[in-house]
């Protein structure tokens, strides 16, 4: 018989440190697959975040820099401007991209930096133990919203794709999920598309991935996937939010 699925070449053998059922793991694999399929291993440079994705350099067999919390887009800008021929992407969580990194994400997008941001939206700060993120939905219980997120005290879930869509520098913004097979297939396509936008120099591209964090949601992995459909997508509708001609 023929091997029809095996480990992508750009993924090192190292075991993931992620929790059971964590969406980060799926996104990591998809990225490696895309890098393989688009033959980008030689030129890709990844910027890793602070957050549960911070160890991606242990997994990706491509050049990787770990950046300070939230500064992924600024660091990626520095790299890309020096090496315009390389594919540069930053990998960031929701706390990283949409809280502390708001300004850097926003302005890299506004400048139309030719980078791609892989934005893993799991609605919490995973790494630090499940605090509220900018994307935490209303009434969601986290360790810093013990009574559920109340919008008058703690604000509203931030839709970054929709925010960045207002900026002229952005060329491709899509929200996907990794909670079921069809969604994962779509997520991979979105990553390919985003990389193509970068390669074609159309502008700033970002793929926002709704991603289960069973641990901090205090759910089983299957339940977490269901919660994405039932609750998260209500606040964060899936689909292409912006696309200019590529």
């Amino acid at each position, binding site marked *: 018989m023929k091997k029809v699925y095996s480990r992508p070449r750009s993924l090192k053998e190292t075991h993931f*440190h*992620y*929790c*059971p059922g964590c969406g980060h793991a799926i996104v990591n694999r998809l990225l490696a697959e895309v890098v393989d399929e688009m033959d980008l291993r030689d030129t890709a440079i990844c910027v890793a975040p602070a957050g*549960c994705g911070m*160890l991606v350099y242990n997994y990706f067999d491509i050049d990787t820099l770990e950046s300070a919390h939230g500064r992924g887009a600024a660091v990626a800008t520095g790299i890309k401007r020096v090496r315009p021929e390389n594919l540069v992407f930053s990998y960031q969580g929701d706390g990283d991209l949409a809280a502390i990194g708001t300004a850097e994400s926003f302005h890299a997008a506004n400048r139309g930096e030719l980078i791609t941001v892989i934005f893993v939206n799991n609605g919490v700060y*995973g*790494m630090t133990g499940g605090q509220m993120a900018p994307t935490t939905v209303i009434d969601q219980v986290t360790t810093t919203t013990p009574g559920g997120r109340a919008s008058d005290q703690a604000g509203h879930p931030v839709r970054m794709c929709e925010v960045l869509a207002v900026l002229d520098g952005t060329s491709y913004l899509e929200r996907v999920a990794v909670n079921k097979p069809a969604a994962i297939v779509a997520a991979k396509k979105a990553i390919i598309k985003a990389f193509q936008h970068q390669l074609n120099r159309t502008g700033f591209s970002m793929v926002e991935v709704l991603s289960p964090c069973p*641990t901090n949601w205090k759910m089983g992995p299957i339940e977490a996937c269901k919660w994405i459909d039932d609750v998260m997508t209500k606040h964060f509708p899936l689909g292409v939010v912006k696309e200019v001609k590529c």
Partner: protein
Amino acid sequence: MLIRTIFSGFGGQGVLSMGYTLATTAMLEGKHVTYFPSYGVEVRGGTANCTVAVSDEEIASPVASEPEFVVAMNQPSFARFQSLLQSGGLIFVNSSIVDVSSTRGDIEVVAVPTSELAEKLGTIKVANMVMLGAFIRLSNIISFDFMTTNLSQILGEGKSKLIKMNKDALELGFNYIKE
């Protein structure tokens, strides 16, 4: 006398709460005590461990390089912490899943089949309390009677419904050890 114990196992096995329960009891007994959890990168599901130091005097360091006791609820913890144990120290092993064939010669293994024992009570969730019961019997750090008498205070109001179950588990472990 300063007695230090490392409780270790998988994230889900309740090792931190074993340590916490011991530490709280010792505190209520009026002893000096420190409880020090250790976190790894492995966000969940990796090995977790904590160190509890109990003493009649002020405690210098909550970290134990050469603990008197180790409780190892899984294989990796057994491998990692048996080497730290003081010569002559006791290592409590969850024998339901830990293979102790390669043990240092100068330490003593106490094998407790926690899963099997806990299942007698109908839930594997109290396996940690079973182990704690056994541990207290042999370590003698705190008074078992004091603990069972004050269990609701020790475990906190919230868990009062589970007091009975926990008490049963502690006793099961305690009695499992033949003196």
